[in-house]
């Protein structure tokens, strides 16, 4: 496919994305699209530490929850509007990510995996038990939807799914752009160096601890943003956001989609949000299947669906060339 064809394809895709709410008119499907976009934010951020640096962080749901609660609490207690709340949420998640990373990224490996799991559980416990602040199990409700205000011109509180959709689209576009820029630069090369051979990377001057921190904190930041968006979209949050099952979902999306690529988390997020719904899979069977997929996927297609797709294209092209001769 040459340059012109590619540009055409991307433009068509971009236009499709822009007019999607006109095509998909029903709320249910639009909701699915929005949920997959939230997961794109989560999986892409997680991809930096898991896919590029190669450290398995299994507490990512914690940053999602922290973002959600930060934004919700600022809104409910102090009337802070969504836009500021979102920034605070990202900042809070990044700060906690920084503190956690500072302690645990020194060791990396299995210790790190364990600590991240425990960390999310602890946060769940805290939000469960600190009833005064978080209403515990009851969760927080009536979180205000985003309001677009231009003094004198308009005062628009989000109320339709398509408004949320466009906001999500902007967030996703920014996140993917930032991720893409990071991984295709010297930072991305540093990440990959650490993943592929940490000792060698350090011997050429890459500070493994520092770059692991960068990947971890940036990922946490985006998860915080996603959490804030979620809180103001669903307008209700509970400590379940910190559940391991949320992290599981993100990990399955990342691994099956293709960790270590920019497109992988996108593919994974969309497929694993949409497919379980369409296949009418019982809620309770979803998780065992995810577990099984993870197990089988990491052994038989460790580079995810993206790579499988690439291989298919490669073989088709090769066969095409063969036929021409």
């Amino acid at each position, binding site marked *: 496919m040459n340059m012109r064809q590619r540009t055409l394809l991307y433009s068509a895709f971009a236009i499709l994305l822009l007019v999607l709410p006109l095509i998909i008119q029903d709320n249910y499907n639009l909701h699915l699209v929005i949920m997959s976009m939230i997961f794109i934010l989560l999986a892409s951020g997680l991809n930096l530490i898991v896919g590029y640096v190669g450290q398995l962080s299994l507490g990512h749901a914690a940053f999602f929850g922290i973002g959600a609660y930060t934004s919700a609490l600022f809104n409910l207690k102090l009337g802070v509007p969504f836009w500021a709340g979102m920034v605070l949420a990202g900042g809070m998640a990044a700060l906690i990510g920084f503190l956690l990373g500072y302690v645990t990224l020194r060791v990396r490996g299995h210790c790190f995996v364990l600590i991240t799991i425990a960390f999310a559980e602890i946060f769940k416990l805290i939000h469960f038990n600190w009833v005064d602040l978080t209403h515990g199990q009851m969760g927080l409700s009536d979180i205000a939807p985003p309001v677009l205000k231009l003094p004198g011109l308009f005062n628009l509180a989000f109320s339709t799914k398509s408004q949320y959709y466009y906001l999500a689209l902007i967030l996703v576009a920014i996140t993917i752009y930032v991720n893409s820029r990071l991984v295709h*630069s*010297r930072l991305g*090369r540093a990440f*990959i160096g650490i993943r*592929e051979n940490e000792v060698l990377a350090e*011997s050429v001057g890459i500070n493994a601890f520092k770059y692991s921190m960068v990947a971890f904190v940036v990922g946490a930041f985006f998860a915080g943003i996603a959490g804030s968006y979620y809180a103001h979209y669903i307008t209700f949050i509970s400590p379940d956001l910190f559940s391991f099952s949320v992290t599981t979902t993100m990990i399955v999306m990342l691994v099956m989609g293709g960790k270590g690529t920019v497109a992988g988390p996108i593919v994974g997020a969309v497929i694993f949000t949409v497919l379980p719904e369409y296949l009418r899979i019982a809620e309770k069977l979803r998780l065992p299947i995810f577990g099984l997929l993870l197990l089988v996927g990491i052994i038989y297609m460790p580079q995810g669906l993206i790579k499988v797709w690439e291989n298919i294209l490669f073989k088709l092209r090769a066969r095409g060339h063969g036929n021409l001769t």
Partner: protein
Amino acid sequence: MATLLEAKELTIFFGGLAAVKHLNMRLERKEILSLIGPNGAGKTTAFNLITGFYRPTEGRVFYKGEDITLLKRHQIAGKGIIRTFQKTEVFPQVTALESVMIGLHLKESCPVIDILFNNRKAREEEKRTREKALETLEFVGLFPKREVLSRNLSYGEMRLLEIAVALGGNPEILLLDEPTSGMNPEESYRAMTLIEKMRETGVTILLVEHDMNVVMGISDRIVVLDHGEKIAEGLPEEIQANEEVIKAYLGSDFIHAQAN
């Protein structure tokens, strides 16, 4: 200052055993110094001590007069001291070109803001990095294999790649740990030529080697270790004639070595 690197009384104990004992040696600018000795003499340990991979129990390492003993390994690399490893280390799932680009990390400094906006400064640095990487690959003779994944390279090619990655950051000092191990005579000869070519570009080289042809062929000076201690130091001819050294191990190896 002619002395680039200096080790003073370097000592390290593993359990109760001293792997390196009171090692004193210096590396002069632009020389090729070989560190030799029987297996287990402590050569790689000495490398690890100098490059921040081990912390010495006693002793210090000085680089251009500065005490670098306690610096972390990436900091030592930052000073311009880069090492290779006894067991070939590569970035397996990365192409040869990308590997060398990773190695160029220390030469890249574009601020993150510029990277995010992908402005001219960022794009130019990317271009420079790529070009330098290609040049380095050319220098070691791996240019044709630039798009091959590191793990798919032959053993000899991996060894060359390791050197290319180490060279990327324009090191002042290159520590090569048994660069010709596993190579046939032809490959060893090419490696030797490469090492001399590197010296010509201004790199000072500290070499651990077992192949006496290589050692005698390119070294300006030789330091001999045995059981963690320096037992001899001097010019190749001096070492060849040194009784202690011959006693330690040169023995049959030396007899097969050709002068120069």
